[in-house]
């Protein structure tokens, strides 16, 4: 009696129709699994952010996720793609969370909407959706809102230790929905320049860094509050490293190049610019190093390419922080390196086994 077997190629298996060959074990990891782990890794940092800056942070995340999924669903529908596998891959959620973490906690709702429109619709789906985007969607969204709504995007709150007035949940929700503060408050009284911004403006007014650092908004090594947020993000980052979701190359070269170059200027003239410590624990550097510059899709894919990519992001961040028009440069640096990534990939192909030259 001959027994018949199904050939591989049924939908459940691999490539759909036709013959397919080995390997016969399907992979154990999935895209959704990878993205979920990134989200887990972000949790400590998110909690820290909320602790220091209030529920606004969570509200921004909520808004961003809702808009992201909405636009994702819309675009999938328009492109004739199935909703469930792609909505369930969590990549849009990762984008939304990373975007929301870059936005001031009380920014009005249309900031998240515009940002997610540019991130999901333009930067992601016009290029063909998951895995096809050339630019980091979250950073495109952030840069678009940064240049389009500069006022809303500079309304940063001080960490709770310094805040004289604090908004409760309802007030925060109202502020985000209306774009206006409740009557009793004014923006000038509740917002504060971020540490990086203070350093930038201070230096351009001719003060030295140590003078600037007298301000209470600075903590032990970075900005008060900000430095701890960075630490918690780093914790999540290490977990991702350990789980092998990300490689060491980008975080190490990115932070390393910032430390190296800022150390050089610092040693020459300690008053002229922030110390390496200050640089690392300010702004979005740690978040960027572990979660943003490591975006696999828009970054370099070869190992040597990743080294260059990380170093490039670090150096450009430093250049923009020191001489450019924006207090922090991580977003621009990431986008600029996204631009260069295909080129870098081209020149950093590994030497194939058994071949002489590269």
């Amino acid at each position, binding site marked *: 009696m001959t027994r018949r077997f199904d050939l591989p190629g049924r939908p459940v298996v691999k490539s759909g129709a036709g013959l397919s060959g080995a390997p016969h074990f399907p992979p154990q990891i999935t895209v959704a699994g990878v993205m979920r782990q990134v989200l887990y890794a972000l949790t400590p940092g998110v909690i820290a952010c909320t602790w220091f800056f209030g529920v606004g942070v969570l509200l921004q995340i909520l808004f961003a996720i809702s808009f992201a999924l909405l636009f994702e669903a819309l675009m999938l529908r328009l492109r004739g793609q199935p909703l469930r596998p792609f909505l369930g891959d969590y990549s849009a959620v990762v984008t939304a969370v990373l975007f929301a973490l870059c936005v001031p906690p009380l920014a009005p709702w249309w900031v998240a909407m*515009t940002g997610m429109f540019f991130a999901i619709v*333009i930067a992601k789906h016009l290029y063909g959706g998951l895995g096809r985007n050339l630019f980091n969607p979250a950073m495109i969204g952030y840069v*678009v809102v940064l*240049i*389009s*709504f*500069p*006022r809303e995007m500079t309304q940063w709150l001080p960490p709770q230790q310094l805040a004289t007035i604090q908004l409760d949940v309802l007030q925060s929700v109202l502020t985000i929905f209306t774009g206006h503060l409740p009557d009793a408050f004014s923006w000038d009284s509740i917002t504060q320049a971020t540490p990086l911004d203070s350093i930038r403006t201070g230096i351009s007014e001719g003060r030295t860094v140590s003078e600037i650092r007298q301000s209470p908004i600075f903590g032990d090594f970075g900005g008060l509050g900000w430095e701890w947020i960075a630490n918690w993000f780093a914790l999540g980052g290490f977990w991702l490293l350990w789980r092998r979701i990300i490689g060491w190359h980008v975080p190490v070269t990115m932070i390393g190049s910032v430390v190296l170059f800022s150390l050089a200027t610092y040693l020459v003239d300690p008053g002229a610019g922030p110390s390496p410590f200050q640089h690392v624990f300010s702004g979005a550097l740690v978040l960027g190093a572990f979660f943003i510059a490591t975006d696999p899709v828009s970054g370099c894919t070869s190992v040597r390419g990743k080294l260059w990519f990380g170093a490039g992001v670090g150096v450009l961040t430093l250049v923009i922080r020191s001489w450019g028009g924006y207090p922090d440069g991580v977003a621009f640096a990431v986008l600029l390196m996204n631009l260069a990534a295909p080129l870098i990939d081209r020149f950093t192909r590994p030497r194939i086994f058994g071949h002489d030259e590269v």
Partner: protein
Amino acid sequence: MTPSYRKIFNDGLWHKNTGLVALLGLCPLLAVSTTIINSLALGLATILTLSLSNLTVSMVRTLLRPEIRIPAYVLIIASIVTAVELSMQAWFHDLYLSLGIFIPLIVTNCAIIGRAESFASRHPPLPALVDGFATGAGFCLALFALGATRELMGHGSLLRDAQFLLGEGAATLQLTIIPHYDGFRLAILPAGAFIFLGFLIALRSWLAR
């Protein structure tokens, strides 16, 4: 064989629109389209240049040896553009200032030399003139569409600075569509110009599907 005027217009305005299909003359298209008035001004200058150059080329088409055709066209166009530039300088000075070097750069708008070579040099003066006009109008249309979108999104208004083109009395023409609008600044920045033109072309291709 000379195509019908209807076809000339269809091609120039829609099917072979320079700005949206052939993608020629992108630099002025993107650079000056921050407001409707700027767009219209450059559009009109382009229509004028194109019509004149097509006419001239068509008139001298039998006199030129093939190998110097193109350089000769370039010279003719450069002369016409300079004439237009001088006139604008004399009579629309504010516009001239706000369009900057994009007036003389009409010379390198490939659409103009392209029409001269592919149409004017093979057809009699009248159709050539019409073709120049239609092509220029197509370009002007693209400019207008882009300018209107960007002005509306960026400033919330339409027809601002109309006095530059239409004289002092026209300053009142400005329509504020969205009052107290803070402006979506991306629209007036270079990045926005590219993105909006991308969408405009996609829209055209969708309409023409």
